């Protein structure tokens, strides 16, 4: 689904991502873990088109998407969520979702006057879809609240809901579990699993909560100091000395601190 090939990016003298290559297989929930400053978020930003890579290529289903801006990727079926959830704070939860589907007829004023009944029909369809998503995520009781008034965890669910309003098939989740309480976290994990199983979404997930990663992700990529140091399922990674070193911070300074 998503192929990352020898991607590098430096900020000034800091090599944030160095020659990283891996593939997010279609239908998988691929995890991306690593200590703070490992380059995970930078890599995500590169994949999602927020920043261009210095070198390397990103392919989505074989098509080169390197450096395409985020809204173009949206139309190609690649969407992302953010570590800190984004929302239209002065619009209701339902309106937040209803805004997402692209190329809506009603956005063209001229056409919307000439064929208003199509707009009405399309609107009803989007409304139904939004309500389905709200029911799926079990946040339908707050649908008429302003999104700005939601709790942090509910905003995370709304963020996930937004990706469900698209026809996207590849979703990048940036720390979906951060700041979410345990009960809500279970719900979030369940939603991700169901989307993956029932609707065939492919996920790539950055997460610090190892339990969540272990529950959801296979395979898991481990990054440290801008490099990909290991990949595999969580059980085997827990035994991997390199991974343990990276997380404990011993030995890694001698290897990579000098740079290459």
């Amino acid at each position: 689904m998503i192929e990352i090939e020898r991607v590098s990016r430096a900020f000034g003298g800091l090599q944030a991502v160095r020659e990283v290559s891996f593939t997010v297989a279609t239908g998988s929930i691929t995890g991306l873990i690593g200590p703070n400053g490992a380059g995970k978020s930078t890599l995500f930003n590169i994949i999602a088109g927020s920043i261009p890579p210095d070198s390397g290529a990103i392919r989505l289903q074989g098509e080169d998407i390197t450096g395409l801006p985020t809204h173009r990727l949206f139309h190609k079926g690649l969407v992302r969520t953010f570590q800190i959830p984004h929302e239209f704070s002065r619009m209701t939860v339902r309106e937040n979702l209803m805004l997402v589907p692209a190329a809506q007829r009603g956005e063209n004023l001229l056409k919307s006057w000439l064929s208003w009944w199509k707009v009405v029909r399309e609107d009803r369809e989007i409304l139904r879809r939004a309500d389905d998503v709200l029911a799926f995520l079990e946040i339908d009781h707050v649908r008429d609240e302003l999104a700005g008034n939601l709790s942090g965890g509910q905003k995370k669910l709304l963020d996930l809901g937004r990706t469900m309003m698209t026809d996207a098939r590849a979703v990048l989740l940036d720390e979906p579990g951060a700041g979410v309480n345990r009960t809500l976290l279970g719900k979030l994990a369940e939603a991700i699993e169901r989307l993956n199983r029932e609707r065939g979404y492919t996920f790539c997930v950055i997460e610090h909560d190892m339990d969540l990663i272990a529950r959801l992700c296979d395979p898991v990529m481990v990054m440290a100091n801008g490099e990909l140091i290991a990949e595999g399922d969580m059980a085997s990674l827990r035994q991997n000395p390199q991974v343990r070193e990276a997380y404990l911070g011993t030995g890694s300074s001698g290897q990579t601190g000098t740079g290459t």
Partner: protein
Amino acid sequence: MVEVIQLLINGILLGSILALGAVGATMIFGVLRFAHFAHGDFMAVGAYFALSVVTVFNLPVLAALPVAMAATAGLAVAIDQLVYRRIRRVQPVILLISSFATALVLRSLIQMIWGSSNQVYQTGIQLPWRIGPFTLKPDHLLIFLAATGLVITVHLFLTRTRLGKAMRAMSDNMNLALITGIPADRVIMATWAIGGALAAAAGVFLGMDTRLHPVMGWTLLLPIFAATILGGIGRPYGAIFGGLVIGCAMELSTLIIPGSYKPAVAFAIMVATLVFRPQGIIKGTV
């Protein structure tokens, strides 16, 4: 007491004119993030467009209103495409300065085309209605009704149509709007068209109430910005409320201080808002 109520009537009239200007200015700010200094001159241009229609076709002013609104909307979109679009990605302050330049150009064009002397839509004296101790000009009622109608139309546009919702979304969270695939260029064009049309209506109403003059819009820019800030920048409903408050405050102030200080009242309210409640007085809702 009679005097206070009479001034309130005048204030609501001035307020609805200010509100129409402020709604456009605040929407432009919300979507494009800069204070549009040429907004007052959009008002003047709209008023003069209507004057041309009135004199050439010998129509009543209200019939010329839609023409003036459409023409000004077109002009606003054209100016955006010609001037502002090229510098959209630079710092907002540069946009602000260029809107100042646009204001100067528009004002000079008005003077070149229509002359710099005072003009009116119709000569002759209109007899005011006397309702008890109060006086009300028929024009005032027309202005109030038309302004109310326009405000309701804008409200329906913002809450019921996709483009209106997309506009609110863009002014709410620009980054998210862009990544969720909202057609930014189309929203920006619509914002200018609506802002221009509302400014033209405000200008025509101002011309009906008083007279036409090349600086008629420019002198109203300060109260319009005051109304925008009072209602919370980027919030159309706040701007309507702000316009009415500023209008009434300006009229009522003549009870205490000379009428020539009216703009100072608007300025004082603006400064007070910025000092004590920079987010505007309306909170929570749109």
